[in-house]
Protein backbone atom coordinates (compact mmCIF):
# COMPACT_ATOMS: atom_id res chain seq x y z
CA UNK A 1 0.00 0.00 0.00
CA UNK A 2 2.97 2.26 -0.52
CA UNK A 3 1.18 4.86 -2.58
CA UNK A 4 -2.47 4.55 -1.90
CA UNK A 5 -3.49 3.90 1.65
CA UNK A 6 -0.78 5.40 3.78
CA UNK A 7 -0.41 8.87 2.43
CA UNK A 8 0.28 10.65 5.68
CA UNK A 9 -1.21 14.06 5.96
CA UNK A 10 2.21 15.36 6.94
CA UNK A 11 3.65 14.77 3.51
CA UNK A 12 0.68 16.18 1.73
CA UNK A 13 1.02 19.73 0.60
CA UNK A 14 -0.20 22.07 3.26
CA UNK A 15 -2.46 24.94 2.83
CA UNK A 16 -0.61 27.90 4.23
CA UNK A 17 0.50 31.23 2.99
CA UNK A 18 3.86 32.17 1.60
CA UNK A 19 3.81 35.13 3.91
CA UNK A 20 4.01 32.87 6.96
CA UNK A 21 6.93 30.95 5.56
CA UNK A 22 8.89 34.12 4.89
CA UNK A 23 8.12 35.28 8.40
CA UNK A 24 9.12 31.93 9.88
CA UNK A 25 12.43 32.01 8.01
CA UNK A 26 13.33 35.24 9.80
CA UNK A 27 12.78 33.85 13.29
CA UNK A 28 16.22 32.32 13.87
CA UNK A 29 17.91 35.57 12.75
CA UNK A 30 15.66 37.72 14.89
CA UNK A 31 15.93 35.59 18.00
CA UNK A 32 19.63 34.91 17.48
CA UNK A 33 20.17 38.62 16.96
CA UNK A 34 18.40 39.48 20.19
CA UNK A 35 20.51 36.98 22.13
CA UNK A 36 23.60 38.48 20.54
CA UNK A 37 22.41 41.93 21.57
CA UNK A 38 22.09 40.65 25.13
CA UNK A 39 25.68 39.41 25.07
CA UNK A 40 26.92 42.71 23.67
CA UNK A 41 25.00 44.58 26.35
CA UNK A 42 26.45 42.35 29.03
CA UNK A 43 30.04 42.72 27.82
CA UNK A 44 30.17 46.36 26.76
CA UNK A 45 27.26 47.60 28.84
CA UNK A 46 29.01 50.39 30.68
CA UNK A 47 30.40 51.90 27.51
CA UNK A 48 27.01 51.85 25.81
CA UNK A 49 25.00 54.00 28.13
CA UNK A 50 25.52 57.64 28.95
CA UNK A 51 24.17 57.16 32.49
CA UNK A 52 25.59 55.43 35.50
CA UNK A 53 22.90 52.88 36.34
CA UNK A 54 23.28 53.57 40.05
CA UNK A 55 23.35 57.36 39.77
CA UNK A 56 20.57 59.07 41.68
CA UNK A 57 18.93 62.12 40.11
CA UNK A 58 15.91 63.16 42.09
CA UNK A 59 14.90 65.76 39.53
CA UNK A 60 14.31 62.93 37.05
CA UNK A 61 12.38 60.80 39.54
CA UNK A 62 9.37 59.10 37.92
CA UNK A 63 10.22 60.52 34.54
CA UNK A 64 8.17 58.58 31.97
CA UNK A 65 9.60 57.08 28.76
CA UNK A 66 10.58 59.51 25.99
CA UNK A 67 7.51 58.94 23.81
CA UNK A 68 5.12 59.77 26.64
CA UNK A 69 4.23 63.33 27.55
CA UNK A 70 6.72 64.65 30.08
CA UNK A 71 9.43 62.21 28.97
CA UNK A 72 12.80 63.10 27.53
CA UNK A 73 15.34 61.34 25.32
CA UNK A 74 17.82 61.77 28.13
CA UNK A 75 16.03 58.81 29.71
CA UNK A 76 14.57 56.89 26.76
CA UNK A 77 12.77 54.30 28.88
CA UNK A 78 12.11 56.67 31.76
CA UNK A 79 13.50 56.78 35.25
CA UNK A 80 12.59 55.08 38.52
CA UNK A 81 11.55 56.54 41.87
CA UNK A 82 15.10 57.74 42.56
CA UNK A 83 15.61 59.10 39.06
CA UNK A 84 17.89 56.28 37.98
CA UNK A 85 17.87 55.64 34.23
CA UNK A 86 15.87 52.50 33.49
CA UNK A 87 17.59 51.72 30.19
CA UNK A 88 20.99 51.90 31.85
CA UNK A 89 19.78 49.61 34.61
CA UNK A 90 18.34 47.11 32.14
CA UNK A 91 21.63 47.01 30.23
CA UNK A 92 23.51 46.58 33.48
CA UNK A 93 21.05 43.91 34.60
CA UNK A 94 21.71 42.00 31.38
CA UNK A 95 25.16 41.20 32.67
CA UNK A 96 23.84 39.63 35.85
CA UNK A 97 21.26 37.66 33.94
CA UNK A 98 23.80 36.41 31.46
CA UNK A 99 26.44 35.54 34.04
CA UNK A 100 23.91 33.63 36.09
CA UNK A 101 22.49 31.84 33.06
CA UNK A 102 25.91 30.94 31.70
CA UNK A 103 27.38 29.58 34.90
CA UNK A 104 24.21 27.85 35.96
CA UNK A 105 23.80 26.10 32.63
CA UNK A 106 27.44 25.15 32.22
CA UNK A 107 27.61 23.72 35.73
CA UNK A 108 24.27 21.95 35.79
CA UNK A 109 24.84 20.70 32.24
CA UNK A 110 28.32 19.44 33.11
CA UNK A 111 27.29 17.73 36.31
CA UNK A 112 24.10 16.37 34.82
CA UNK A 113 25.88 15.07 31.72
CA UNK A 114 28.60 13.35 33.71
CA UNK A 115 26.15 11.73 36.09
CA UNK A 116 23.79 10.80 33.26
CA UNK A 117 26.61 9.19 31.28
CA UNK A 118 27.69 7.16 34.28
CA UNK A 119 24.12 6.02 34.89
CA UNK A 120 23.47 5.18 31.27
CA UNK A 121 26.80 3.59 30.48
CA UNK A 122 27.44 1.48 33.54
CA UNK A 123 23.83 0.76 34.46
CA UNK A 124 23.32 -1.47 37.49
CA UNK A 125 23.58 0.08 40.93
CA UNK A 126 25.06 3.34 39.73
CA UNK A 127 22.03 3.77 37.51
CA UNK A 128 19.52 2.86 40.23
CA UNK A 129 21.04 5.25 42.75
CA UNK A 130 21.44 8.14 40.33
CA UNK A 131 17.98 7.82 38.89
CA UNK A 132 16.51 7.63 42.40
CA UNK A 133 18.32 10.88 43.18
CA UNK A 134 16.87 12.40 40.02
CA UNK A 135 13.40 11.29 41.08
CA UNK A 136 13.86 12.77 44.54
CA UNK A 137 15.17 16.01 43.12
CA UNK A 138 12.20 16.21 40.80
CA UNK A 139 9.72 15.49 43.57
CA UNK A 140 10.61 18.70 45.35
CA UNK A 141 9.25 21.76 43.51
CA UNK A 142 12.43 23.49 42.38
CA UNK A 143 11.48 26.85 43.84
CA UNK A 144 10.82 25.22 47.23
CA UNK A 145 14.24 23.63 47.13
CA UNK A 146 15.68 26.95 46.09
CA UNK A 147 14.00 28.70 49.00
CA UNK A 148 15.41 26.34 51.57
CA UNK A 149 18.88 26.60 50.03
CA UNK A 150 18.69 30.34 49.77
CA UNK A 151 17.67 30.45 53.40
CA UNK A 152 20.75 28.67 54.69
CA UNK A 153 23.27 30.24 52.33
CA UNK A 154 23.83 33.96 52.24
CA UNK A 155 21.85 35.52 49.43
CA UNK A 156 23.84 36.72 46.44
CA UNK A 157 25.00 35.82 42.97
CA UNK A 158 26.84 32.63 44.01
CA UNK A 159 23.84 31.36 45.90
CA UNK A 160 21.57 31.94 42.94
CA UNK A 161 23.90 29.93 40.73
CA UNK A 162 24.19 27.09 43.25
CA UNK A 163 20.43 27.01 43.69
CA UNK A 164 19.83 26.79 39.95
CA UNK A 165 22.44 24.08 39.49
CA UNK A 166 20.84 22.02 42.25
CA UNK A 167 17.45 22.45 40.61
CA UNK A 168 18.44 21.80 37.00
CA UNK A 169 21.12 19.10 36.94
CA UNK A 170 18.50 16.36 37.04
CA UNK A 171 17.04 17.39 33.66
CA UNK A 172 20.41 16.99 31.98
CA UNK A 173 21.11 13.75 33.80
CA UNK A 174 17.85 12.28 32.58
CA UNK A 175 18.34 13.45 29.02
CA UNK A 176 21.94 12.28 28.73
CA UNK A 177 21.14 8.93 30.33
CA UNK A 178 18.44 8.17 27.82
CA UNK A 179 20.68 9.29 24.96
CA UNK A 180 23.50 7.06 26.18
CA UNK A 181 21.13 4.14 26.56
CA UNK A 182 20.00 4.45 22.97
CA UNK A 183 23.52 5.04 21.65
CA UNK A 184 24.82 2.02 23.52
CA UNK A 185 22.62 -0.16 21.35
CA UNK A 186 24.27 1.12 18.18
CA UNK A 187 26.70 -1.20 16.48
CA UNK A 188 29.69 1.08 16.44
CA UNK A 189 29.64 1.54 20.19
CA UNK A 190 29.31 -2.18 20.74
CA UNK A 191 32.19 -2.73 18.30
CA UNK A 192 34.38 -0.23 20.08
CA UNK A 193 33.71 -2.07 23.31
CA UNK A 194 34.58 -5.42 21.77
CA UNK A 195 37.72 -3.88 20.31
CA UNK A 196 38.82 -3.15 23.85
CA UNK A 197 38.32 0.59 24.09
CA UNK A 198 38.11 1.79 27.65
CA UNK A 199 35.07 3.66 28.93
CA UNK A 200 36.90 6.97 28.70
CA UNK A 201 37.75 6.51 25.03
CA UNK A 202 34.19 5.45 24.28
CA UNK A 203 32.77 8.48 26.09
CA UNK A 204 35.16 10.79 24.37
CA UNK A 205 35.06 9.31 20.86
CA UNK A 206 31.58 7.92 20.48
CA UNK A 207 29.18 9.18 23.08
CA UNK A 208 30.12 12.80 23.68
CA UNK A 209 29.91 13.98 20.06
CA UNK A 210 26.42 12.55 19.77
CA UNK A 211 25.21 14.02 23.01
CA UNK A 212 26.57 17.50 22.41
CA UNK A 213 23.79 18.46 20.00
CA UNK A 214 21.01 17.43 22.33
CA UNK A 215 22.66 19.21 25.23
CA UNK A 216 23.15 22.34 23.18
CA UNK A 217 19.46 22.45 22.35
CA UNK A 218 18.38 21.91 25.95
CA UNK A 219 20.85 24.52 27.14
CA UNK A 220 19.56 27.12 24.68
CA UNK A 221 15.99 26.40 25.66
CA UNK A 222 16.91 26.75 29.31
CA UNK A 223 18.51 30.18 29.08
CA UNK A 224 15.04 31.67 29.29
CA UNK A 225 13.94 29.44 32.14
CA UNK A 226 17.06 30.17 34.15
CA UNK A 227 16.63 33.89 33.67
CA UNK A 228 13.05 33.69 34.90
CA UNK A 229 14.19 31.58 37.84
CA UNK A 230 16.83 34.12 38.78
CA UNK A 231 14.31 36.94 38.42
CA UNK A 232 11.87 35.09 40.68
CA UNK A 233 14.48 34.57 43.38
CA UNK A 234 15.65 38.16 43.16
CA UNK A 235 12.06 39.36 43.21
CA UNK A 236 11.52 37.48 46.47
CA UNK A 237 14.67 39.08 47.85
CA UNK A 238 16.54 35.79 47.95
CA UNK A 239 18.69 36.34 44.89
CA UNK A 240 20.84 39.17 43.71
CA UNK A 241 21.14 41.89 46.33
CA UNK A 242 21.32 45.63 45.90
CA UNK A 243 23.49 47.48 44.82
CA UNK A 244 23.95 44.77 42.19
CA UNK A 245 21.31 45.19 39.52
CA UNK A 246 19.10 42.45 38.18
CA UNK A 247 15.86 42.55 36.24
CA UNK A 248 14.02 40.66 38.96
CA UNK A 249 15.31 43.07 41.59
CA UNK A 250 14.18 46.05 39.50
CA UNK A 251 10.69 44.57 39.41
CA UNK A 252 10.74 44.01 43.16
CA UNK A 253 11.66 47.69 43.67
CA UNK A 254 9.10 48.94 41.18
CA UNK A 255 6.37 46.97 42.90
CA UNK A 256 6.53 49.55 45.68
CA UNK A 257 5.33 52.36 43.42
CA UNK A 258 3.14 50.36 41.09
CA UNK A 259 0.50 53.10 41.02
CA UNK A 260 2.97 55.83 39.99
CA UNK A 261 5.17 54.47 37.23
CA UNK A 262 3.91 51.75 34.92
CA UNK A 263 7.13 51.90 32.91
CA UNK A 264 9.24 50.86 35.87
CA UNK A 265 7.24 47.62 36.04
CA UNK A 266 6.86 47.13 32.31
CA UNK A 267 10.38 47.71 30.95
CA UNK A 268 12.41 45.17 32.94
CA UNK A 269 9.68 42.61 32.34
CA UNK A 270 9.81 43.24 28.61
CA UNK A 271 13.57 42.64 28.76
CA UNK A 272 12.98 39.30 30.46
CA UNK A 273 10.23 38.39 28.04
CA UNK A 274 12.25 39.20 24.92
CA UNK A 275 15.23 37.25 26.21
CA UNK A 276 13.09 34.21 27.00
CA UNK A 277 11.23 34.35 23.70
CA UNK A 278 14.55 34.54 21.87
CA UNK A 279 15.99 31.64 23.79
CA UNK A 280 12.89 29.51 23.20
CA UNK A 281 12.59 30.35 19.51
CA UNK A 282 16.30 29.98 18.87
CA UNK A 283 16.35 26.68 20.75
CA UNK A 284 13.44 25.35 18.72
CA UNK A 285 15.13 26.38 15.53
CA UNK A 286 18.42 24.84 16.65
CA UNK A 287 16.69 21.57 17.43
CA UNK A 288 15.18 21.39 13.97
CA UNK A 289 18.39 22.46 12.32
CA UNK A 290 20.50 19.86 14.13
CA UNK A 291 18.05 17.04 13.56
CA UNK A 292 18.70 15.57 10.12
CA UNK A 293 15.29 13.91 10.02
CA UNK A 294 13.47 17.18 10.46
CA UNK A 295 15.70 19.03 8.06
CA UNK A 296 14.60 16.82 5.19
CA UNK A 297 10.95 17.70 5.58
Amino acid at each position, binding site marked *: *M*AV*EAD*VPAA*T*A*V*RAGGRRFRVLAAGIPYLSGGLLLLLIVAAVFGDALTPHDPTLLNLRAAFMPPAWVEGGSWAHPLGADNLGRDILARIISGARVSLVVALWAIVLSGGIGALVGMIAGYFGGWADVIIMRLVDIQMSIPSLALALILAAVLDPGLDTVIIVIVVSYWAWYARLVRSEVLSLKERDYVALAKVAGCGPFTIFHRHLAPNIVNTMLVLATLQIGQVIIFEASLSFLGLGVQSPDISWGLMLADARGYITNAWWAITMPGVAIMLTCLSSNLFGDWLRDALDPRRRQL
Partner: protein
Amino acid sequence: MTPALKVENLVTELALRRGVLRPVDGVSFHVDPSETLGIVGESGSGKSMTCLSLLRLLPKPGGRIASGSVVVGGRDLTRLSEEELARDWRGRRISMVTQDPMTSLNPVYTVGDQVGAPLRYHRLAEGMRAVRAGAAAVLGRVRIPSPESRLDEYPHQFSGGMRQRVVSAMAIACEPEVMIADEPTSNLDVTIQVKMIDLYRKIQEETGVAIVLITHDMGVAASICDRIAVMYAGRIVETGPARRIFRAPAHPYTRALLDSIPRLGRKSRRLTALGGQPPDLANPPTGCRFAPRCALRVAKCAAYPPDAALGEGHSAACWLAGNEADHAA
Protein backbone atom coordinates in the same frame (compact mmCIF):
# COMPACT_ATOMS: atom_id res chain seq x y z
CA MET B 1 -32.49 -3.02 -12.71
CA THR B 2 -31.22 0.26 -11.25
CA PRO B 3 -27.72 -0.29 -9.91
CA ALA B 4 -27.20 0.30 -6.17
CA LEU B 5 -23.99 2.18 -6.97
CA LYS B 6 -22.91 3.66 -10.25
CA VAL B 7 -19.47 5.22 -10.65
CA GLU B 8 -18.60 7.09 -13.78
CA ASN B 9 -15.27 8.51 -14.92
CA LEU B 10 -14.08 9.03 -11.39
CA VAL B 11 -10.79 10.94 -11.18
CA THR B 12 -9.10 11.47 -7.82
CA GLU B 13 -6.10 13.67 -7.29
CA LEU B 14 -3.60 13.61 -4.50
CA ALA B 15 -1.30 16.58 -4.02
CA LEU B 16 2.04 15.49 -2.62
CA ARG B 17 5.28 17.36 -2.23
CA ARG B 18 6.64 15.69 -5.35
CA GLY B 19 3.64 16.60 -7.45
CA VAL B 20 0.00 15.83 -8.10
CA LEU B 21 -0.85 12.15 -8.49
CA ARG B 22 -3.95 10.61 -9.98
CA PRO B 23 -4.31 7.35 -8.09
CA VAL B 24 -7.80 6.99 -9.59
CA ASP B 25 -7.85 8.05 -13.23
CA GLY B 26 -11.18 7.68 -14.99
CA VAL B 27 -12.75 4.70 -13.26
CA SER B 28 -16.29 3.55 -14.09
CA PHE B 29 -18.25 0.60 -12.68
CA HIS B 30 -21.60 -0.30 -11.19
CA VAL B 31 -22.95 -2.76 -8.65
CA ASP B 32 -26.50 -4.08 -8.52
CA PRO B 33 -28.40 -4.84 -5.33
CA SER B 34 -27.49 -8.25 -3.87
CA GLU B 35 -24.43 -8.33 -6.08
CA THR B 36 -20.77 -8.47 -5.12
CA LEU B 37 -18.21 -6.70 -7.26
CA GLY B 38 -14.58 -7.48 -6.64
CA ILE B 39 -11.98 -4.84 -7.40
CA VAL B 40 -8.66 -6.60 -7.62
CA GLY B 41 -5.15 -5.43 -8.31
CA GLU B 42 -1.70 -5.07 -6.82
CA SER B 43 -0.78 -2.74 -4.02
CA GLY B 44 -0.63 0.76 -5.42
CA SER B 45 -3.11 0.14 -8.20
CA GLY B 46 -5.55 2.67 -6.75
CA LYS B 47 -8.08 0.26 -5.23
CA SER B 48 -8.06 1.76 -1.77
CA MET B 49 -8.13 5.30 -3.10
CA THR B 50 -11.15 4.39 -5.21
CA CYS B 51 -12.85 3.07 -2.13
CA LEU B 52 -12.02 6.19 -0.07
CA SER B 53 -13.22 8.39 -2.93
CA LEU B 54 -16.65 6.74 -2.95
CA LEU B 55 -17.29 7.95 0.60
CA ARG B 56 -15.18 11.09 0.17
CA LEU B 57 -12.81 10.04 2.93
CA LEU B 58 -9.64 11.06 1.11
CA PRO B 59 -6.70 12.21 3.23
CA LYS B 60 -6.79 15.92 3.92
CA PRO B 61 -5.21 18.18 3.00
CA GLY B 62 -4.17 17.06 -0.49
CA GLY B 63 -6.78 14.55 -1.62
CA ARG B 64 -9.75 15.54 -3.76
CA ILE B 65 -12.14 14.20 -6.33
CA ALA B 66 -11.26 16.03 -9.55
CA SER B 67 -14.16 14.85 -11.72
CA GLY B 68 -16.68 12.09 -12.29
CA SER B 69 -19.75 10.96 -10.39
CA VAL B 70 -20.67 8.48 -7.66
CA VAL B 71 -24.40 7.84 -7.76
CA VAL B 72 -26.29 6.12 -4.96
CA GLY B 73 -30.10 6.23 -4.77
CA GLY B 74 -30.28 8.73 -7.63
CA ARG B 75 -27.96 11.30 -6.02
CA ASP B 76 -24.40 12.14 -7.01
CA LEU B 77 -22.40 11.94 -3.78
CA THR B 78 -19.58 14.08 -5.19
CA ARG B 79 -21.94 17.04 -5.34
CA LEU B 80 -23.33 16.86 -1.79
CA SER B 81 -22.21 19.12 1.03
CA GLU B 82 -20.02 17.55 3.68
CA GLU B 83 -22.82 17.91 6.27
CA GLU B 84 -25.47 16.31 4.08
CA LEU B 85 -23.13 13.48 3.16
CA ALA B 86 -22.46 12.70 6.83
CA ARG B 87 -26.08 13.10 7.89
CA ASP B 88 -27.92 11.10 5.24
CA TRP B 89 -25.44 8.94 3.37
CA ARG B 90 -22.30 7.75 5.15
CA GLY B 91 -23.18 4.75 7.26
CA ARG B 92 -26.85 5.11 6.34
CA ARG B 93 -26.96 4.22 2.64
CA ILE B 94 -23.29 3.55 1.86
CA SER B 95 -20.77 2.28 4.38
CA MET B 96 -17.27 0.97 4.60
CA VAL B 97 -15.29 -1.78 6.32
CA THR B 98 -11.69 -0.69 6.78
CA GLN B 99 -8.58 -2.72 6.32
CA ASP B 100 -7.14 -3.30 9.74
CA PRO B 101 -9.50 -4.58 12.44
CA MET B 102 -6.86 -3.89 15.10
CA THR B 103 -6.79 -0.14 14.50
CA SER B 104 -10.29 0.53 13.18
CA LEU B 105 -12.03 0.59 16.55
CA ASN B 106 -11.69 3.43 19.02
CA PRO B 107 -9.74 1.98 21.96
CA VAL B 108 -11.40 4.12 24.63
CA TYR B 109 -15.06 3.51 23.82
CA THR B 110 -17.03 0.32 24.38
CA VAL B 111 -18.02 -1.89 21.51
CA GLY B 112 -21.68 -1.22 22.29
CA ASP B 113 -21.11 2.52 22.04
CA GLN B 114 -19.36 2.20 18.68
CA VAL B 115 -21.80 -0.22 17.11
CA GLY B 116 -24.73 1.83 18.40
CA ALA B 117 -23.22 5.06 17.09
CA PRO B 118 -24.50 4.77 13.47
CA LEU B 119 -27.99 3.98 14.82
CA ARG B 120 -27.82 7.15 16.91
CA TYR B 121 -26.46 9.38 14.17
CA HIS B 122 -29.12 8.27 11.73
CA ARG B 123 -31.97 8.35 14.24
CA LEU B 124 -32.79 4.68 13.81
CA ALA B 125 -32.87 4.24 17.56
CA GLU B 126 -33.57 6.92 20.15
CA GLY B 127 -32.73 6.66 23.79
CA MET B 128 -30.01 4.69 25.51
CA ARG B 129 -32.00 1.50 25.88
CA ALA B 130 -33.11 1.37 22.25
CA VAL B 131 -29.57 2.01 21.04
CA ARG B 132 -28.22 -0.78 23.24
CA ALA B 133 -30.86 -3.20 22.02
CA GLY B 134 -30.14 -2.18 18.43
CA ALA B 135 -26.40 -2.61 18.90
CA ALA B 136 -26.91 -6.05 20.42
CA ALA B 137 -29.12 -7.05 17.52
CA VAL B 138 -26.52 -5.93 15.00
CA LEU B 139 -23.77 -7.80 16.83
CA GLY B 140 -26.01 -10.85 16.67
CA ARG B 141 -26.30 -10.44 12.95
CA VAL B 142 -22.54 -10.62 12.54
CA ARG B 143 -22.68 -13.85 14.59
CA ILE B 144 -20.98 -12.59 17.74
CA PRO B 145 -22.07 -15.01 20.48
CA SER B 146 -24.07 -13.60 23.43
CA PRO B 147 -23.94 -10.02 22.12
CA GLU B 148 -25.70 -8.38 25.12
CA SER B 149 -22.91 -9.43 27.45
CA ARG B 150 -20.22 -7.99 25.19
CA LEU B 151 -21.68 -4.54 24.68
CA ASP B 152 -19.77 -3.07 27.60
CA GLU B 153 -16.46 -4.59 26.65
CA TYR B 154 -13.67 -2.66 24.96
CA PRO B 155 -12.09 -3.48 21.61
CA HIS B 156 -8.89 -4.80 23.18
CA GLN B 157 -10.95 -7.56 24.79
CA PHE B 158 -11.88 -8.93 21.36
CA SER B 159 -9.75 -11.14 19.09
CA GLY B 160 -8.77 -9.96 15.61
CA GLY B 161 -11.52 -11.91 13.87
CA MET B 162 -14.13 -10.73 16.38
CA ARG B 163 -13.00 -7.15 15.91
CA GLN B 164 -13.48 -7.46 12.17
CA ARG B 165 -17.01 -8.65 12.92
CA VAL B 166 -17.55 -5.58 15.09
CA VAL B 167 -16.29 -3.31 12.31
CA SER B 168 -18.62 -5.08 9.89
CA ALA B 169 -21.45 -4.65 12.36
CA MET B 170 -20.87 -0.88 12.36
CA ALA B 171 -20.99 -0.91 8.59
CA ILE B 172 -24.26 -2.86 8.29
CA ALA B 173 -25.99 -1.37 11.35
CA CYS B 174 -28.26 0.90 9.30
CA GLU B 175 -28.79 -1.64 6.53
CA PRO B 176 -27.14 0.41 3.80
CA GLU B 177 -27.66 -0.26 0.11
CA VAL B 178 -23.93 -0.38 -0.57
CA MET B 179 -21.10 -1.69 1.55
CA ILE B 180 -17.49 -1.17 0.57
CA ALA B 181 -15.06 -3.64 2.10
CA ASP B 182 -11.39 -2.67 1.73
CA GLU B 183 -9.29 -5.81 2.15
CA PRO B 184 -11.51 -6.98 5.00
CA THR B 185 -9.73 -10.28 5.34
CA SER B 186 -6.13 -9.60 4.46
CA ASN B 187 -5.01 -9.21 8.08
CA LEU B 188 -6.77 -12.35 9.30
CA ASP B 189 -5.85 -16.03 9.52
CA VAL B 190 -6.99 -18.15 6.63
CA THR B 191 -9.60 -20.03 8.67
CA ILE B 192 -11.07 -16.76 9.89
CA GLN B 193 -10.99 -15.39 6.35
CA VAL B 194 -13.25 -18.21 5.23
CA LYS B 195 -15.68 -17.47 8.07
CA MET B 196 -15.76 -13.76 7.26
CA ILE B 197 -16.49 -14.39 3.60
CA ASP B 198 -19.24 -16.74 4.64
CA LEU B 199 -20.62 -14.03 6.91
CA TYR B 200 -20.66 -11.43 4.13
CA ARG B 201 -22.57 -13.84 1.92
CA LYS B 202 -25.18 -14.42 4.61
CA ILE B 203 -25.55 -10.73 5.34
CA GLN B 204 -26.06 -10.11 1.64
CA GLU B 205 -28.74 -12.79 1.47
CA GLU B 206 -30.51 -11.22 4.46
CA THR B 207 -30.37 -7.56 3.45
CA GLY B 208 -29.73 -7.45 -0.28
CA VAL B 209 -26.76 -5.13 0.22
CA ALA B 210 -24.51 -4.51 -2.77
CA ILE B 211 -20.91 -5.22 -1.84
CA VAL B 212 -17.77 -3.75 -3.35
CA LEU B 213 -14.95 -5.98 -2.20
CA ILE B 214 -11.45 -4.68 -2.60
CA THR B 215 -8.69 -7.26 -2.49
CA HIS B 216 -5.30 -8.17 -3.89
CA ASP B 217 -6.07 -11.83 -3.31
CA MET B 218 -7.61 -13.52 -6.38
CA GLY B 219 -8.50 -16.51 -4.21
CA VAL B 220 -10.72 -14.40 -1.98
CA ALA B 221 -12.25 -12.69 -5.00
CA ALA B 222 -13.03 -16.03 -6.61
CA SER B 223 -14.85 -17.29 -3.54
CA ILE B 224 -17.40 -14.48 -3.19
CA CYS B 225 -17.58 -12.12 -6.17
CA ASP B 226 -20.24 -12.17 -8.88
CA ARG B 227 -18.30 -9.79 -11.05
CA ILE B 228 -14.69 -8.69 -11.08
CA ALA B 229 -13.01 -5.43 -12.05
CA VAL B 230 -9.25 -5.59 -12.44
CA MET B 231 -7.45 -2.37 -11.65
CA TYR B 232 -3.99 -1.34 -12.74
CA ALA B 233 -2.28 2.02 -12.23
CA GLY B 234 -5.47 3.92 -11.51
CA ARG B 235 -7.58 2.42 -14.28
CA ILE B 236 -9.85 -0.57 -14.70
CA VAL B 237 -8.23 -2.76 -17.33
CA GLU B 238 -10.71 -5.61 -17.42
CA THR B 239 -14.17 -6.22 -16.06
CA GLY B 240 -16.74 -8.98 -16.38
CA PRO B 241 -18.54 -11.82 -14.68
CA ALA B 242 -16.24 -13.63 -12.25
CA ARG B 243 -16.69 -16.91 -14.10
CA ARG B 244 -15.45 -15.39 -17.37
CA ILE B 245 -12.59 -13.51 -15.79
CA PHE B 246 -11.28 -16.70 -14.23
CA ARG B 247 -11.95 -19.00 -17.20
CA ALA B 248 -11.06 -16.66 -20.06
CA PRO B 249 -9.04 -13.66 -18.88
CA ALA B 250 -8.53 -11.28 -21.77
CA HIS B 251 -5.94 -8.85 -20.37
CA PRO B 252 -2.36 -9.96 -19.91
CA TYR B 253 -2.32 -8.32 -16.49
CA THR B 254 -5.34 -10.36 -15.34
CA ARG B 255 -3.57 -13.49 -16.43
CA ALA B 256 -0.52 -12.58 -14.43
CA LEU B 257 -2.71 -11.96 -11.41
CA LEU B 258 -4.40 -15.32 -11.82
CA ASP B 259 -1.02 -17.01 -11.73
CA SER B 260 -0.74 -15.80 -8.18
CA ILE B 261 -3.81 -17.72 -6.94
CA PRO B 262 -2.60 -20.04 -4.21
CA ARG B 263 -2.49 -23.70 -5.11
CA LEU B 264 -3.50 -26.28 -2.58
CA GLY B 265 -1.07 -26.38 0.31
CA ARG B 266 0.74 -23.26 -0.77
CA LYS B 267 0.37 -19.91 0.88
CA SER B 268 -1.03 -17.03 -1.12
CA ARG B 269 1.71 -14.87 -2.54
CA ARG B 270 1.82 -11.54 -4.21
CA LEU B 271 2.78 -10.94 -7.79
CA THR B 272 6.24 -12.41 -7.80
CA ALA B 273 5.71 -14.02 -11.16
CA LEU B 274 5.42 -10.63 -12.77
CA GLY B 275 8.63 -8.64 -13.16
CA GLY B 276 8.96 -4.92 -12.68
CA GLN B 277 7.06 -2.35 -10.65
CA PRO B 278 3.74 -0.61 -11.25
CA PRO B 279 4.36 2.76 -12.92
CA ASP B 280 4.99 5.94 -10.99
CA LEU B 281 1.60 7.61 -10.85
CA ALA B 282 3.15 11.06 -10.82
CA ASN B 283 4.41 10.30 -14.27
CA PRO B 284 2.35 7.53 -15.93
CA PRO B 285 3.17 6.08 -19.36
CA THR B 286 1.19 7.73 -22.15
CA GLY B 287 -0.10 4.57 -23.76
CA CYS B 288 -1.20 1.33 -22.15
CA ARG B 289 0.03 1.57 -18.59
CA PHE B 290 0.83 -2.11 -18.39
CA ALA B 291 2.90 -2.07 -21.58
CA PRO B 292 6.33 -1.69 -19.90
CA ARG B 293 5.79 -4.96 -18.02
CA CYS B 294 3.79 -6.78 -20.69
CA ALA B 295 5.26 -9.80 -22.44
CA LEU B 296 2.86 -9.40 -25.38
CA ARG B 297 3.62 -5.73 -26.04
CA VAL B 298 3.14 -4.57 -29.64
CA ALA B 299 3.66 -1.23 -31.36
CA LYS B 300 0.01 -0.20 -30.95
CA CYS B 301 0.41 -0.25 -27.15
CA ALA B 302 1.95 3.21 -27.33
CA ALA B 303 -1.65 4.50 -27.53
CA TYR B 304 -4.17 3.77 -24.80
CA PRO B 305 -6.42 0.90 -25.91
CA PRO B 306 -10.22 1.29 -25.95
CA ASP B 307 -12.42 -1.13 -24.00
CA ALA B 308 -13.05 -4.13 -26.21
CA ALA B 309 -16.49 -5.65 -25.58
CA LEU B 310 -16.28 -9.42 -25.34
CA GLY B 311 -19.94 -10.27 -24.63
CA GLU B 312 -21.84 -11.02 -21.40
CA GLY B 313 -20.64 -7.73 -19.94
CA HIS B 314 -17.03 -8.79 -20.30
CA SER B 315 -14.63 -6.14 -21.59
CA ALA B 316 -10.91 -5.49 -21.53
CA ALA B 317 -8.74 -2.47 -22.31
CA CYS B 318 -6.18 -4.24 -24.47
CA TRP B 319 -5.42 -4.07 -28.17
CA LEU B 320 -5.10 -7.82 -28.21
CA ALA B 321 -8.41 -8.56 -26.52
CA GLY B 322 -10.86 -10.52 -28.68
CA ASN B 323 -8.60 -11.12 -31.61
CA GLU B 324 -5.57 -12.03 -29.64
CA ALA B 325 -5.15 -15.42 -31.31
CA ASP B 326 -4.26 -13.77 -34.64
CA HIS B 327 -1.58 -11.63 -33.07
CA ALA B 328 -0.10 -14.22 -30.79
CA ALA B 329 0.45 -16.60 -33.65
